[in-house]
């Protein structure tokens, strides 16, 4: 059994693909830097993340599969699922070895599995677009806290920048403890050590805007009166608005 050890970055994974083809030894397991090697491990190869090598693999892939299929790979990577790296590795290998593009071959279990993962990542991205709730601070900044299941904030940025391009905002991923701050020109990654919001993501009264509470009340009032009593359907409600998001929603407070 051959194991590869790499730094658990997407570039690292592409470098691993390069290494495998260069040495003609294909890994059975991919390990992170601190993972224990499996039993019966014959060979352990340490992968050095190399930008030149990863770019070469990426360029090679550009020739073999279409752009839209290629860009699903980094999206799938954001799912952070435990075995997604091996899945992407196998997909890339199949793409390189096949004589024609494999991207439409959904009869192949790896292609199908990756398509499913991509769909769920994109669904989660949509959920972030749906359920982000900004709160205005006293200095006119809009702040929001959310816990997406996958690490999808980077791929939602273009949407939020386009929509709210004339207001400063922060979207903070409470689960992964980082966020993005948009300062009217670019979005930069930020991390806060002293948090000025409670565990449900609501800003403390000292930093919130004067009218913030009122608008949250207005929204909750509107939300409550929208439901038609004769049609109550808690199951459908929970399916559409998953309970894991309720914590940060003012209407569910």
């Amino acid at each position, binding site marked *: 059994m051959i194991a590869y050890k790499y730094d658990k970055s997407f570039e690292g994974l592409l470098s691993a693909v390069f290494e495998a083809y260069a040495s003609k030894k294909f890994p059975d397991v991919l390990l992170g830097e601190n993972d224990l090697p499996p039993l019966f491990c014959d060979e352990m190869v340490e992968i050095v993340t190399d930008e030149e090598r990863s770019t070469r693999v990426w360029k090679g892939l550009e020739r073999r599969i279409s752009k839209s299929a290629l860009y699903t790979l980094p999206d799938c990577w954001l799912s952070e699922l435990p075995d997604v790296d091996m899945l992407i590795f196998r997909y890339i290998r199949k793409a390189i070895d096949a004589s024609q593009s494999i991207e439409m071959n959904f009869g192949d279990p790896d292609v199908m599995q990756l398509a499913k993962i991509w769909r769920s990542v994109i669904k989660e991205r949509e959920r972030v677009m*749906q359920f982000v*709730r900004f709160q205005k601070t006293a200095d006119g900044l809009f702040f929001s806290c959310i816990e997406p299941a996958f690490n999808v904030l980077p791929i939602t940025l273009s949407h939020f920048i*386009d929509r*709210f391009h004339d207001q400063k905002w922060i979207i903070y991923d409470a689960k992964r403890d980082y966020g993005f701050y948009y300062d009217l020109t670019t979005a930069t990654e930020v991390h806060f050590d002293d948090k000025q919001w409670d565990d449900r993501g609501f800003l403390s009264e000292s930093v919130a805007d004067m009218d913030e509470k009122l608008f949250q009340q*207005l929204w909750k009032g509107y939300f409550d*009166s929208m439901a038609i009593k004769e049609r109550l359907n808690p199951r459908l409600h929970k399916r559409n608005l998953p309970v894991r998001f309720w914590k940060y929603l003012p209407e569910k407070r």
Partner: protein
Amino acid sequence: MNDNVLEKLKTLAESAKYDVSCASSGTTRGHKAGMVGSASGWGICHSFAEDGRCIALLKIMLTNYCMYDCAYCINRRSNDIKRATLSVSELVELTMEFYRRNYIEGLFLSSGVVRSPDYTMERLVRIVKDLRTVHRYNGYIHLKSIPGASRELVDEAGLYADRMSVNIEIPNEQSLQALAPEKDFKSVFTPMQYIKQGSLQSIEERKHYRHAPRYVPAGQSTQMIVGATPERDKDILTLSSALYQDPSMKRVYYSGYIHVNTNDTRLPAVSKPPLVRENRLYQADWLLRFYQFSVDEIVDDAFPDLDLEVDPKLSWALRHPEKFPVDVNTADYELILRVPGIGVKSANLIVTSRRFGHISSWQLKKMGVVMKKAQYFLTCRELPIRTIHELTPERVKRILTKGSNNSMNTQYTIQFPDD
């Protein structure tokens, strides 16, 4: 902004909530310099009410005073309910502040008819014009067109709104006249025609001049109440199908009748809205729009109503066993789409994947085909399986409806052991 607004907002939302349409789809528009907001083509639902319906737009009435007395409507003149009117500045501030907080995707503005249709329509148009030109709002706007409004006003509204709608409410003119004496089909269909003509004209102009203004880019929609009047599903679906012939008509909504005006004897006293029927109508609507069905395949004189036990596609398949089984490896896309349990997504997956090799049943399962239903209607080059011909349609129906906690299934059936 104060508590007074909260009360008004609640009252007017209560009045507006029976309008089903809440789609925010149909327009893709990036931000414009100096304006706020964008519109995403597929629409984003920002919240879901406890009845499971999406809340994408701030669905609100400008006022719930109304001079009409439609029997099915909660806001009718003769009802003793709380009435309120929002001022223009209040409405604009609510929209902008909600939008900036990502609560909503846009505004859905409707109104009770005050003084005259034109007077009301003019006020609505003024608000959307203000939103766009003064407050530089670039998000989604759905505007109700008041039945009977004049052409000039509808034309002007179309320049600012993304989608417009006029509700038919009752799918038959006699029934409509009985319930809403002030309305007739003409007052409903005329604005619809205006919207259609404006939209077609704008599409044509934009082919010649790139900067010609867009006119209701997301098209129009309408709504019908189901279960208030004796119309059959055939009448409703035939009307929908005719409406969909108009290229600007994007959606027809069906709203299960809720008995809000309990003292009106013209209407059936139903305790629960006909949710199953409403659901079946939506399924039939999907068949019309995405599955290449024509309306007389779904309902005809022999079957004027949709089967409440099984969905309309399965019901069609059970009536037409001669079309099955379909071989997924060779059949055309249109035929694969007709197999119960296969949707648009999985039909596309099948058609693209079979170029690489045969598709087997476990692959179908992985692609998301509901094999529980589909197994009786397809073959895929495996050992012969029991299809609808071996089992007879009646038996397939019995198997597929077994276990569903439908109150109609109380009759005992003899279970034959599976051979």
